[in-house]
């Protein structure tokens, strides 16, 4: 894949122009990545609001009816319930991996199968999450299996 960067003061905002002969997985992933770079989620930490870009989210977890957004080193709280976030993030590289977790596949480091049919994923920040059996087939589909 080739890319051209045109740098000039005449441009008011950054614009991405994709030229392709057909929409293959590579192009789709690129679009997902760009979407993640431009869309953000309003989260709260210590009574201060933050805008977290989708692409910075490692995973989202729901605990006791509260939703927490995890980035590389931080944890924020959001008012959105998990099912709503699942809908918001459906065109990104995020997917539901259990009843209480949404994972960003971009930060996967490794995957390990467990004897009970679940998968254990390790993220780039070395956190470990479990993919429940209900979501294992969807997870495999994301990798073309």
């Amino acid at each position, binding site marked *: 894949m080739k890319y051209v960067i045109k740098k000039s003061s005449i441009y008011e905002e950054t614009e991405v122009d994709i030229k392709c002969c057909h929409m293959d997985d590579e192009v789709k*992933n690129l679009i997902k990545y760009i979407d993640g770079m431009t869309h953000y989620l309003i989260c709260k930490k210590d009574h201060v609001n933050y805008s977290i870009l989708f692409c910075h989210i490692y995973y989202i977890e729901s605990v006791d009816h509260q939703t927490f957004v995890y980035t590389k080193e931080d944890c924020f709280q959001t008012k959105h319930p998990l099912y709503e976030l699942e809908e918001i993030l459906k065109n990104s590289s995020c997917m539901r991996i259990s009843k209480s977790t949404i994972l960003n*596949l*971009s930060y*996967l*480091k*490794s*995957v*390990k*199968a*467990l*004897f*009970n*049919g*679940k*998968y254990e994923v390790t993220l780039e920040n070395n956190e470990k999450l479990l993919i*429940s*059996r*209900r979501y*294992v*087939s969807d997870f*495999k589909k994301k*990798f*073309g*299996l």
Partner: protein
Amino acid sequence: MKRISDMFLITSCSFMLVVMFNCLCQTFFVESRAIQVKDIYNILLVCFIISGLLVNLSITDSMLMSYMTVMIVIYVMEYLFYGAEFFTPVNFIFSFIIMSFIFFIVYLVLYYENEKDAQKINLFIQKHIK
């Protein structure tokens, strides 16, 4: 389609294992009752039901729940085939051990399949995400 092929694979493997185990038992324990045609049909039907249940239950989260469901189905099947006289302590323990063994083998096969997929995913991650 993959589910159906998994189901038939589990059915044939477990059927073969149970029949072989029966034959081995008859070789070493002469006093044990010879395997009859009715028994073979029973084994085949039970193996088929178990594999169908396992393939579908593999999406549920509790391994213990799938095990319990499968065991209940097996005992209901045995009751339908042989009636109440099947439930002697020896028969009960013997079938419990065999079925637990099959269950263990099936989970081992599923684990092996999942581990193979995990390796493929790891390769994909190394190639595309890194």
